[in-house]
């Protein structure tokens, strides 16, 4: 080992402080670049009103992306979040039309959506249906349910208390922004500072090893789907308050936006990697790029194409073949920040004398022939 003793400790401390930033370096750099480009392309881009616009638009997707991340980190996927958000708008509108108060409406809608999440989780864990299919089926069921409950095209929301809870400003800051910031912080802390978060990473990284280490795998996976559905419900509240109505169409397609956000934020669909904050940053990055394109008057169709390529590129860099590329970029960032080790040595095993069990690029090497020592 090259670094030993005090020098090693020094690097450790520095890394611990700078670690989260270094890990997000590609994302932060990309966002900075996009902001600069935006400023160059449109004088209006850097205005307060425009940022308000970006954040409010991004709030719904961000909250959904956090929930989506909680599922993706377990190596699952939740295609039903858009439908659940729609259902949440409809259920809330109908409950308030029957004269319920804002708070009891919120509680009941959350509960109903939580049950949907429970069903998702049970389908995945106990019925052993792959997450993609289980939540695709539930997408249809919940969407249809929302349509049946609304009994028309949409239901108006007159309850000003409810609208005031999920939209409007507090001290100049939009409520949606406060909510999504709060959600992001709560789940970022949960994933990093709770045993539950650690267990989710372990389950996504290797469910078998997690099970054999005594972690409650089934319970935690179900919990992830419940969280995802509950956050979808909150996203639904924001949509409903913003538009003053509940409709089975409001959340359509949002599941894909939330997946794109998580993936652009570096979550791997194979599980075990990423963070909720990065998922939110990913969503905001996509939102910012759309915003710039809107400002430049780019039509919706070319926008779709650009967004599509962005997602493909992000997955290529995070979990596709481009991961090696990102590894060397990360090493470059590290060597610039820490002046520590030359480029190209990142990712090599720490040990010099032992033969590595896994080569740096993840290919397993053949087992060495047995060597016997006489003892």
């Amino acid at each position, binding site marked *: 080992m090259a670094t030993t003793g005090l020098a090693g400790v020094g690097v450790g401390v520095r890394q611990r402080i700078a670690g989260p930033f270094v890990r997000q370096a590609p994302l932060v750099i990309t966002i900075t670049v996009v902001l600069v480009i935006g400023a160059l392309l449109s004088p209006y881009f850097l205005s307060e009103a425009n940022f308000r616009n970006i954040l409010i638009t991004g709030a719904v997707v961000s909250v959904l992306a956090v929930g989506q991340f909680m599922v993706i980190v377990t190596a699952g996927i939740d295609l039903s979040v858009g439908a659940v958000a729609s259902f949440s708008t409809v259920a809330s509108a109908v409950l308030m039309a029957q004269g319920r108060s804002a708070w009891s409406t919120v509680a009941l809608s959350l509960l109903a959506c939580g049950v949907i999440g429970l069903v998702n989780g049970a389908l995945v864990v106990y019925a052993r249906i792959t997450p993609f299919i289980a939540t695709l089926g539930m997408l249809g069921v919940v969407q249809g349910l929302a349509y049946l409950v609304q009994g028309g095209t949409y239901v108006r929301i007159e309850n000003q208390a409810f609208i005031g809870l999920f939209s409007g400003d507090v001290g100049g800051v939009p409520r949606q922004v406060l909510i999504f910031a709060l959600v992001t912080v709560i789940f970022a802390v949960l994933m990093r500072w709770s045993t539950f978060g650690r267990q989710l990473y372990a389950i996504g990284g290797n469910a078998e090893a997690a099970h054999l280490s005594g972690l409650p795998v089934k319970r935690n996976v179900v919990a992830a789907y419940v969280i995802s559905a509950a956050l979808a419900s909150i996203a639904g509240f924001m949509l409903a308050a913003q538009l003053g109505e509940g409709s089975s169409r409001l959340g359509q397609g949002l599941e894909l936006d939330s997946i794109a956000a998580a993936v652009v934020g570096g979550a791997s669909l194979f599980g075990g*990697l990423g963070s909720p904050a990065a998922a939110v940053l990913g969503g905001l990055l996509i939102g910012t790029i759309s915003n710039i394109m809107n400002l430049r008057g780019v039509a919706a169709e070319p926008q779709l194409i650009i967004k599509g390529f962005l997602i493909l590129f992000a997955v290529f860099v995070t979990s596709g073949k481009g991961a090696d590329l990102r590894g060397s970029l990360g090493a470059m960032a590290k060597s610039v920040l820490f002046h520590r080790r030359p480029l190209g040595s990142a990712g090599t095993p720490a040990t010099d004398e032992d033969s590595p069990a896994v080569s*740096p690029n993840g290919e397993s090497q053949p087992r060495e022939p047995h060597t016997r020592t006489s003892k």
Partner: protein
Amino acid sequence: MSSTTRGERWTDAGDERRADTPVLSLRGVSKSYAGVVALTGVDLDVRAGEAVGLLGQNGAGKSTLVKIISGAEQPSAGSVEISGERVRLSSPAVARASGVHTIYQELSVVPQLTVAENVFLSDLPRRGPSVDWRELRRAARETLRDLGFEIDVTRRVRDLPLAQRQAIEIAKAVHSEAKIVLLDEPTAALPQPDAKKLFALLRRLKSEGVSIIYVSHRLDEVYDICDRITILRDGRQIATRPASSVHQDDAVRLMIGDKLVGGMLGQAASEKQPRINPRGAGFTAGAPALEVHALSDGALLENISLRVMPGEAVAVTGLVGSGQAELAACIFGGRPRSSGEVLVDGKPLAPGSPRRSIASGLGWLPEERKLQGLVLSMSVAENLTLASLRSVGMWGRLRRRLEQTLAETMAANLRIKTRGVAQRVGDLSGGNQQKVVFGKWLLARSRVLIVSEPTRGVDVGAKEEIYREMTAFLAGGGSMLVSSSEIDEALMCDRIYVLSRGRIVAELAHDDTDPDELVSFLR
């Protein structure tokens, strides 16, 4: 058949093919992976209608040899000849075209297709642009009937028992006019009566002039079917002899090597293997730390009973595939058991719940540590605390600083070589990964450890260190069940249970274990 023309021909041997030209011959075949030698200088001749058995322990080079003959890997040196012509088996497809048909343990039938479609998968009979289904069914039925199997060829393969799937694989080989059929552990998952049927089929193939290469850990099977046996050890060809001239016991000795056992065979009884346990003999006091009563798994294990006294190191050994791996998993709860009881400190364990096993003080170092022991994407520290999150956490809050301290202390104690406990565990060497798994159970305060093949895939230096940790664990009052197919590892323990085909066939105490006697139980 257009065999040799499709394999790239290097030299032209002409047409002087004599009847005794081997169908397959390997000359000085060697293979190394990234500098690690897996096989050196293997010479092998297989004649028409002959069955050759390949024997060897894990890591002996059997699977490498199988890969080379089946075309999955290219030899680093040496040559392969088929019917006297040098060929390059550059892919499994080329090997098949050259007449080598390999039947893997994981069969390569397509379960969703019908029997007939599977037999003729590579060349479905056609009538004009479409498949001639009637002809397909007729030909498949005939091929299978010739082999002595009456199978409804319109059934889907996934609905068939394993033995019939194997028959379909063999029918595929026959249909493609294979000259050599290579079988890799064909009976590993096969019930006894079906194995008999398979052997009858293989004999029939032999009588029709097809050569057979049979790879297995199971000696009696190899002796049953093979005319000659080749024994590999440490990547070397130790012997190739007519089966009738090598006694089974001698074959076992050749397989496991004389570096160890040969040196000890005939030694005075006082010169024993060193004990891994520093606490000497006589573990009779008190109740057993671990007790297994009449455990069966409905597949391989049958009526296993054993006990580990407090502070004792007990080995479960046998040739590879005898059931020691399955037994370890069954005891811990990583694999379901069909009957029987496991008790830790006298309290019964819930079957299939590693969580409760761990809570009772049990830990398991699995053989497949990368698949079952570690989360490779997580750090050393995160892996170390994986089984003790409850004590690292407090009301669900992860005390990261405590975790850091615990992990650093453990990494220092176990001398895990890392750039720091934040390093990804997947980047460590095999020996250091094993130490991380060990540390995981130490942090979980396990009192009884089940240790499966603790030094497999670990280099010599790390091996000694892992033994030292095992010794330290025992010195600290822990008890240990060592599941190993390494005889020398078993001989280091206080007591040895010998497994054969899923049953315990002997129980030996360290002090009166004659290695010779132990070897005689292995089969």
